[in-house]
């Protein structure tokens, strides 16, 4: 199985590649939009929305990502890569995002930082019914349980009908931590830095 990692110079590409390499997949760092050809791509993101979207737009990846999704190919957004799938972010004075999903991104209530670990309990049956995710190619686990690492100041307020989603945490219930809709999945946490859970997560997701 071939996976592309979108590399626009922002994002923890090395960590994501190391994480995916553990599954012995064919992983390619894609720096030009015309090379985005795999059935599945990962959109990592570290930084803030404004500069990230500027770079994405300037590189031509904006249209390539939208085309990739339109063609029914799978996309996994991580952290800022998850946030930019929505319509608008309040970060950097207001930033227009990809609008692949409906919703917005705002500063976490009370100007909190969400730095730390949260427990997650995901039932694979909840999202595998459409055939995009949870195909069982790398894991037959029906439940993905463990803890995931978060490090962010802005969070997603989802306004889209989705196949599966989880809350950010018990204290930050109005924000979304994980979302799956058709061929698009997004995680606010960093699965590539979530130790054993992160590895089981990607195995269960594929």
């Amino acid at each position, binding site marked *: 199985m071939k996976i592309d990692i979108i590399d626009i110079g922002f994002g*923890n590409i*090395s960590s994501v590649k*190391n*994480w995916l390499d553990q599954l012995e997949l064919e992983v390619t760092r894609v720096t030009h939009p015309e090379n985005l050809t795999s059935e599945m791509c990962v959109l990592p993101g*570290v*930084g*803030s929305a404004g500069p990230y979207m500027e770079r994405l737009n300037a590189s031509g990846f904006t249209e390539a990502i939208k085309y990739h999704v339109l063609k029914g190919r799978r996309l996994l957004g991580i952290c800022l890569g998850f946030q930019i799938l929505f319509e608008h972010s309040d970060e950097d004075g207001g930033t227009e995002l990809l609008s692949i999903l409906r919703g917005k991104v705002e500063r976490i209530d009370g100007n909190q930082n969400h730095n730390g670990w949260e427990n997650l309990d995901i039932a694979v049956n909840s999202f595998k019914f459409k055939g995009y995710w949870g195909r069982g190619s790398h894991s037959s686990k029906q439940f993905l349980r463990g803890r995931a*690492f978060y490090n962010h100041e802005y969070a997603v307020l989802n306004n889209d009908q989705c196949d599966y989603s989880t809350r950010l945490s018990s204290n930050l219930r109005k924000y979304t931590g994980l979302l799956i809709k058709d061929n698009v999945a997004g995680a606010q946490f960093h699965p590539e830095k*979530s130790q054993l859970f992160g590895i089981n997560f990607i195995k269960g997701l594929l």
Partner: protein
Amino acid sequence: MRIGTSVLVHNGLAYQSYNWSIYRPLGNVQGVIDALDEYECDEIALIFPTRNDQSIASKTNDLDLVKNICSTSPMSIGGGIRSFDDIPYLRELPLERFIVSSAAVLNNWKLIEQLKYHFGPQAVQSILPVKYDREELYVFLCSTNKFIPLNKIDLNAIAELSNEVIIYDTNADGFMDRFKFNLISKLCLDPSKTIITGGVGPKCIKVAQKIGISACMIDNRTLHSENSINALKRHARLS
């Protein structure tokens, strides 16, 4: 509350320290990281001890080593991030956060803003190595290799611009349960955005949890089973 560890990296090897001056070798960096991954360490801070005008960009061997580290734990790096010229070297590293010391103490706000621009506001931590001397508090300025009085630094700006502030009790460095919690009140820091290190042990973990500290970084002996991350997390759970 997160429980992590700090590891010094110098000339390709990992160390932990005593008293801010004596280094105890731990061995191969990847080997240490593998053990900490196995212990489910909440985060790992890799510190390049940097004195005088050295910058991180000059530590090419250590940077190459870090670039090739394979870890599934959150990691940060600090030591010698001093100018805009250092930023390109940081981009290729498999890390989530960057720790500044001299830049914070010397009011280099432009550098901190640039780090936030490239890596996000959640990615920047400031570290203040502090010591008491006759009841007065001093902060270590790595770029001059000297301690300076606390009143010479703009602590409010550091707290404002950093996602979190790390207080390193250098008097207690390497010892068990000697971290001085009155440093938090003396520095008037928000505990929920403060990380403590230097003399942190099981009793400190309990106190830190009670006052709402963001994270504890264990500075020594985390590879010993009785002082391991797992043992210390048990202390936190049972408190």
